[in-house]
């Protein structure tokens, strides 16, 4: 089964034949996915399926052994996180990647600090900008001067999301964006994702939560043991069929009824 981008446009991101191996173990093997502007692509699979490794090559945090990445149809070289950011790719890592000893504004602008005209850090301006964006994302957030290590899981997640959103990302990678959150905060993140999508941002979302994926994603790419099982339109499949892809590694049309029954134990 193949999917075509709506309207036949050039995809925002195209990853072709990506390969990553760690000492002989193929973490990612010949995987090709694509992402369109204003689309949420759900990337699902069991533990060790290679989802995180695959998106890390897009984020510049992991070197691919082979494969090509096209942004707007043009071949892109992404060797470092800095390169990825230059292409407008922002990433929210599962670990959040926050400097725990620093406050929210420092983390927001980590590596991209606002400077005064004297070449010194402009902490006031950074705090001001952080207050503005937090006012939009999480109005209850008020700990702008404490190290993020003392914040709750949800607040820390807000900081990581705010950082990704603030710099006008065109491509957003979210690795388990709601894993650390309570129900209210999860809903907030979902709302935000829909909003970003409507602004034309392409989002790759890695999630364990199949309900989350069905609720938000336009298309779903399934990985198993480093390989891409396939990419399906959300409207064309049932949750069971996606589960079958995740667990058995077969596309809906290849799955037998017996296998589906076994799936339900």
């Amino acid at each position: 089964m193949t999917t075509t981008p709506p309207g036949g446009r050039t995809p925002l991101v195209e990853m072709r034949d990506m390969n990553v191996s760690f000492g002989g173990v193929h973490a990612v093997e010949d995987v090709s996915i694509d992402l369109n502007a204003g689309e949420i692509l759900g990337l699902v699979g069991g533990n060790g399926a290679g989802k995180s490794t695959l998106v890390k090559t897009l984020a510049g945090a992991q070197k691919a052994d082979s494969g090509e990445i096209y942004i707007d149809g043009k071949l892109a070289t992404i060797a470092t996180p800095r390169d990825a950011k230059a292409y407008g790719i922002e990433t929210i890592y599962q670990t959040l990647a926050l400097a725990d000893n620093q406050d929210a504004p420092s983390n927001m602008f980590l590596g991209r600090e606002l400077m005064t005209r004297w070449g010194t850090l402009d902490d006031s301006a950074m705090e001001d900008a952080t207050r503005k964006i937090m006012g939009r994302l999480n109005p209850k957030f008020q700990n702008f001067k404490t190290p993020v290590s003392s914040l709750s899981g949800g607040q820390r997640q807000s900081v990581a999301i705010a950082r990704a959103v603030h710099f006008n990302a065109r491509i957003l990678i979210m690795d388990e964006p709601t894993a650390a959150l309570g129900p209210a905060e999860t809903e907030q993140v979902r709302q935000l994702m829909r909003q970003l999508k409507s602004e034309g941002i392409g989002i790759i979302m890695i999630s364990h939560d199949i309900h989350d994926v069905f609720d938000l994603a336009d298309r779903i790419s399934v990985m198993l043991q480093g390989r891409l099982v396939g990419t399906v339109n959300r409207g064309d499949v049932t949750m069971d069929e996606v589960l079958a892809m995740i667990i058995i590694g077969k596309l809906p049309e290849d799955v037998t009824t017996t296998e589906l029954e076994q799936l339900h134990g």
Partner: protein
Amino acid sequence: MSVVEASPTHPETLGPSPRRSVGSFLRDNEIDTRMVGMIVVLLVIWVGFHFLSGGTFITPRNLWNLSVQTSSIAIMASGMVLVIVSRNIDLSVGSMVGTVGMVMAMLQVEWLPALMGRGNSWIWVATLAVGLALGAAIGALQGSIIAYIGVPSFIVTLGGLLVWRGFAWLTASGRTIAPMDASFQLLGGGARGSLGDTGSWILGGIACVGIVALLVMGRRRRRKFGFRLRPTWLDVVLGFLGCAVVLAAVWVMNSYYLPENLARAYAEANAIPWPEGGLQVPYGIAYPVLILLGVTLVMAFVANRLRFGRYVFSIGGNPEAANLAGIKTKRTIVKTFMVMGILVAVSAAVSIARLNAAVSGLGTLNELYVIAAAVIGGTSLAGGIGTIPGAILGALVMQSLQSGMVLIGVGAPVQDVALGVVLVTAVAIDTIYRRRAAR
């Protein structure tokens, strides 16, 4: 660097908190409680030794000596903060003092006079420049092995501890090199290497203006962004306290007078007739202390106001996050060791100038005092936490203890025991304090 960190707060974040303890009041107004605690401890030590020594500790003479003795360790401690904050350690600083000090001594006593002519007034400048470059180069070498090859800093600098001690001996085949260049000697303090009373008062005045300017600028910046202002009376009190401390320090330094033989030489040199009852010529602030003040200001600025400093702290907080944020972590680590090397050279210059000689054992055990000063000053060996003023205070606490024990006649072995116990106790208290603060 003031105890107060000028950083903005918003109106709604900090209402009057329900529990009005002194600690929460200080925290609400962004005054570092830890630093206040350390100053209190320092004062307790001073007053305690003053009574135990029968009133000889808090005297101009002792405090002046204390300020000079603290300088060489404190200068290096400010650099060690950055090294430790970035989750590294430098065990080689004591031996580096030996090598760099020995090379600087050879430069001014043997090598440069042969090249530039004996008595050339540029010798001390050239010596210092080569010394600083050598310190930076050694730091770059060790830092590169740590950052790019990935050998733990503990091992690289443990090796350095042996290597540079060996080089210190090899540089002059174990000879003692003396005396230093006449101008170079001033870096070590002493009668001529001090600012005198007028200069000290002027410097104190400038410092007071600086303190007031910082407070005013801080308020202006907060107002610009609509952040909460500290109560005006508190800023006034802080400004007043800061200026009082500065002026008191200047007064103490100016109350220490040259001994009679030096005063006579001074009177002769300046064609002042020797008065009945002697001439009182104040020392004023010693040059090594001036150097320390300069280093402290620069290092605090680097740590708090520059990208480099923020990156060092971010790497210490979470190296992976720093990397993912696009920070060039390896280059940053190399830079921290280069800064450390430069400060080692400054400290070595002060030491050989003060001793007016260089020996191959110069700086032995300094690494331990420097690390201890940084750690007593609140630098966490786990990385990510530490302040420059804290480390300077840490060095001052250690030197105060040592000088105090000498004054009351405690023998060297007992001094070592006491310092070791204080180091562990300080870190234990700090650990408990942090654990409680984290809750």
